[in-house]
């Protein structure tokens, strides 16, 4: 049986790993290569590494860093940050990365995903959408954002995800800006809406503070990807840095119970 994927998501900022809160106040949590080594030992399902500087600084992906990460990583690796062309995506795949994610470049030009799918295969093309609740007194529903939440787009995230899927995305990652780093649980309503909207594999990021939150997400959505930053780099309410990940047994028990709950619902 296909299992849900439980995925640590690491953010690279100024060469180090950081964890943000609501896309701001980055806190240094360690060295990227060292973190990959620890997740190797813990045998995590996948790993996602996002360079949060590249797009904002309008620079190319840091190929030297990607090569080092890929050489070290013994689980499937998804890299994102600064990718704007299919050629860049090909180069990253050749370095030993399984999946390449794009966000703002795909929002600006969804056809980029078609060109990437042509070059590296749809299974390796990931679209990350940063989503937040609409603000204001009469705000209802969600809106899309890019450039570390600095730019808003007046499009419905679910409809836009469908468009990206049609263009060539093999996976959609939904990153909740409001929940980022809060550790109070995933936005289940958003996750359910997106699950109903897309046919490709879906991964939800933003909000997990405990394995119970992961259970809650899987119970609501079934077999999907549950990604988290804070959960896997912090320990306790004071956010002491401690890289952690559930054991195979913990994960199996958690998934089995959550999927049973999902099937009943």
């Amino acid at each position, binding site marked *: 049986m*296909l299992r849900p994927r439980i995925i640590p998501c690491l953010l690279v900022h100024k060469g180090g790993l950081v964890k943000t809160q609501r896309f701001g106040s980055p806190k240094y949590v360690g060295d990227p290569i060292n973190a990959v080594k620890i997740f190797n030992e813990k045998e995590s*399902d996948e790993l996602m590494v996002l360079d949060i500087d590249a797009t904002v600084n309008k620079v190319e992906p840091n190929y030297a860093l990607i*090569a080092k990460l890929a050489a070290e990583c013994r689980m499937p690796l998804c890299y994102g940050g600064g990718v704007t062309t299919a050629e860049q995506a090909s180069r990253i795949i050749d370095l030993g990365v*399984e999946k390449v994610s794009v966000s703002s470049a795909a929002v600006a030009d969804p056809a980029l995903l078609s060109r990437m799918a*042509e070059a*590296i*295969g749809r299974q390796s093309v990931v679209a990350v959408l940063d989503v937040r609740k609409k603000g204001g007194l009469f705000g209802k529903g969600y809106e899309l954002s890019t450039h570390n939440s600095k730019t808003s787009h007046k499009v419905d995230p679910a409809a836009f995800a469908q468009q990206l899927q049609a263009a060539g995305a093999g996976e959609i990652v939904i990153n909740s800006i409001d929940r980022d780093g809060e550790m109070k649980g995933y936005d289940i309503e958003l996750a359910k809406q997106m699950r109903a909207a897309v046919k490709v*594999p*879906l991964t939800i990021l933003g909000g997990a503070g405990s394995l119970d939150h992961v259970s809650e997400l899987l119970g609501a959505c079934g077999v999907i990807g549950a990604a988290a930053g804070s959960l896997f780099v912090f320990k306790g309410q004071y956010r002491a840095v401690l890289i952690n990940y559930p054991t195979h047994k913990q994960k199996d028990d958690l998934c089995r119970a959550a999927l049973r709950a999902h099937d009943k619902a």
Partner: protein
Amino acid sequence: MIRIVDYGVGNIQAFMTMFKRLGIDATRARSADELEGATRLVLPGVGAFDHAMNLLNQSGMRPRLEEMVLERQVPVIGICVGMQMLASGSDEGEIAGLNWVPGRVKALASHPLSKDLPMPHMGWNDIRIKPGQKLFADFEPDPRFYFLHSYYFDALDKQDVSATAEYGHDFDCIVSRGNIHGVQCHPEKSHHFGAQLLKNFAVL
């Protein structure tokens, strides 16, 4: 000495890293001459079937590979699209495959039980292995592997199937026919489960 066939497609580096960690001597081969001396061959592959076949056909390595695999019986393992290339052809493309193992590559979604599932098939899945295969020596119970694909190798002779996985329907995920092996999942990215399989392949 293991040679990883580097015809321009696939995650060569991931295999190099994995073999190095296992203490197994492996290098990449970019030409027919570099294939020589190989006691084992790894044929990787990702992306579209036609793209991979085109590049292999243009690499100048195919005649030597066929001689080594089909005549000299050097053990070979095709991985992901590298496994699919062992077939006669693929529903994903138009170019003929290597036709080393009888079978054809089909879309997972072409099966009525799988057509409504998310595609690609992405993530960790259990595999059901045929007992007694050397490739699975010292496997622990409930082996699981990482998958990332939308097409699969459908073996013509089910005697060749050494493992299946279930995604809507049971599909062939590992084939072994004499010295020729193919795995759809990614042993190079499947932690200790994959390491064991590659270790077994190295001493077949």
